[in-house]
């Protein structure tokens, strides 16, 4: 390709500009977080006396240790269950082609476009009746169900695209459906399952609406839900709020940097399939 030098420089300048716009907000809250608690600094200003203690204070004020445990518990409760269910349902619809598979699939596809806001009200009243409100399960159970449309759709796409040779060969060897599923197809589907798991974990961690409505105690919420409560209490103390925000962001950022290839690939595949 012959591309003029000017064009290359102009293009790169544009990209650098965009990157700066993306990163500057993070820099700004980081610098703000270092100002003395309770002051009102300017947007981008390195403090004379960096208050690294703010992070410690925010960690304690927000009860971060309990929060981390709570969020981890919710993620660990949601993701494995949702994965098993979605994989089995995808297997039944995509590979076994059980009767009514098309109708089921259509139902799930409809669920894909469903905004959470649409069902949050009945969900609240139903959980109140079941006595689930204000427990972590108030978040866990609906999330598992809400991930089903996407999860089933995702796994079905995987199973439906498999060549049928594998299945036939296993059948000839006398494998029943149960063995076929666990011994042959689950190991083969591992990459698809892993991507789905990463996606669900990130979504769960960041889930806000369900946590806000269904659980009143921030310590029983997801990370994002707790951040909402933190903001409510410390809206006036900007440096502390920024420090807390950074602390809550940190786990996600670390996971992103480590798994960025997987996450980007998973999110993209996910949306293209969906």
């Amino acid at each position, binding site marked *: 390709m012959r591309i003029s030098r000017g*064009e290359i420089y102009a*293009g*790169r300048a544009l*990209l650098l500009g*965009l*990157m700066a*716009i*993306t*990163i500057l*907000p993070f820099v*700004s*809250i980081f610098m703000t977080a270092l100002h003395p608690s309770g002051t009102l600094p*300017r*947007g*981008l200003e390195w403090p004379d006396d960096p208050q690294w203690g703010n992070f410690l204070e925010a960690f304690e004020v927000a009860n971060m240790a309990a929060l981390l445990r709570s969020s981890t518990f919710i993620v660990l409760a949601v993701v494995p269950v949702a994965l098993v*269910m979605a994989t*089995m*349902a995808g*297997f*039944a619809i995509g590979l076994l082609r059980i009767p009514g598979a098309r109708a089921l699939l259509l*139902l799930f596809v409809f*669920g894909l*476009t469903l*905004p*959470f*806001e*649409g*069902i949050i*009200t*009945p969900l*609240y009243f*139903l959980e109140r009746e079941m006595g689930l409100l204000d427990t972590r399960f108030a978040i866990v159970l*609906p999330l598992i*169900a*809400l991930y*089903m449309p996407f999860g089933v759709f995702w796994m079905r796409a995987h199973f439906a695209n498999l060549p049928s040779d594998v299945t036939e060969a296993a059948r000839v060897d006398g494998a*029943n459906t*149960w063995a076929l599923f666990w011994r042959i197809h689950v190991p083969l589907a591992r990459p698809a399952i892993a991507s789905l798991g990463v996606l669900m974990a990130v979504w769960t961690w*960041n889930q*806000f*609406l369900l946590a*806000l409505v269904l659980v009143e105690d921030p310590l029983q919420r997801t*990370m*994002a*839900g707790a*951040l909402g409560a933190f*903001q409510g209490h410390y809206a006036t103390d900007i440096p502390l*709020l*920024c420090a807390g*925000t950074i602390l*809550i*962001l940190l786990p*996600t*950022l670390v996971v*992103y940097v480590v798994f960025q290839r997987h996450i*980007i690939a998973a*999110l*993209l595949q996910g*949306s*293209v399939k969906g």
Partner: protein
Amino acid sequence: MYAVFVLQPLALTIQYSLYRWNGVGPATWVGLSNYVTVLRDPDLFGTIIHSFQLVLFFSVVPVSLGLVTASVIHRVAPGRFGTVTRTVLFLPQVIPLVAAGIIWGWLLSLPGLINQALDAIGLGSVTRAWLGDFDTALPAVGLIGIWVLLGFCTVLLLAGMTKIDPALYESARIDGAGWWREFVSITLPSLRYEVGVCLTVTIVAALAAFDIVYVSTGGGPGNSTAVPGIQIYILAFLERQVGLASALAVLLMILVLVIILPIQRLSREERR
């Protein structure tokens, strides 16, 4: 086989029951009069108007800007520089939307970075509390949406571009096609499907915007940034008008379906 057929209906039961709550909710608590109220009350109907305005910011801008950015990366930065750009631009997509709301709530506040920058380039007269001003609050929320969604669109469109046969570009160049001509007659048509996906995702994000708005403005000042998601929350849980909230929720879901289905159909058909 047994387990597959026992566990799978189980999964579906949870699934079904969720939908039935939703379906039954309006039927038990709401008559049609609630829908009339939603459509007549300027405040409630206004939320739907607002969400359409947000579509402009959340969807139109990121998709078009994403197209430009992706083609620039594709053309001038195929190597490591492009990868770094991709990773950085995608960053806002993985952080909680609540965090994005808080960060921008600070940047757009009176002493925030935006006003500081405006001061620095001599535009001190236009500085204001962007999210607290009736005229600027909604566009300011839209700006947050652009920041969050641009990376997603760029990366998705870029992935689509790398699948385009380079031979197409070469023959175009032999025919003397410039950058713009190339973009319009090769890149854009090949990306119809990806553009469709981007539009779908971003429009749903705009119509169902809750996290960002809740954290950054809470629907205010006045009602100027109230979107259906916020209004449902306020009605159902603060004002205890469950019927009205549900009616609005149903309308929101219908709205999403009505807008998304044609886009999906269009992008899928044109793919063949």
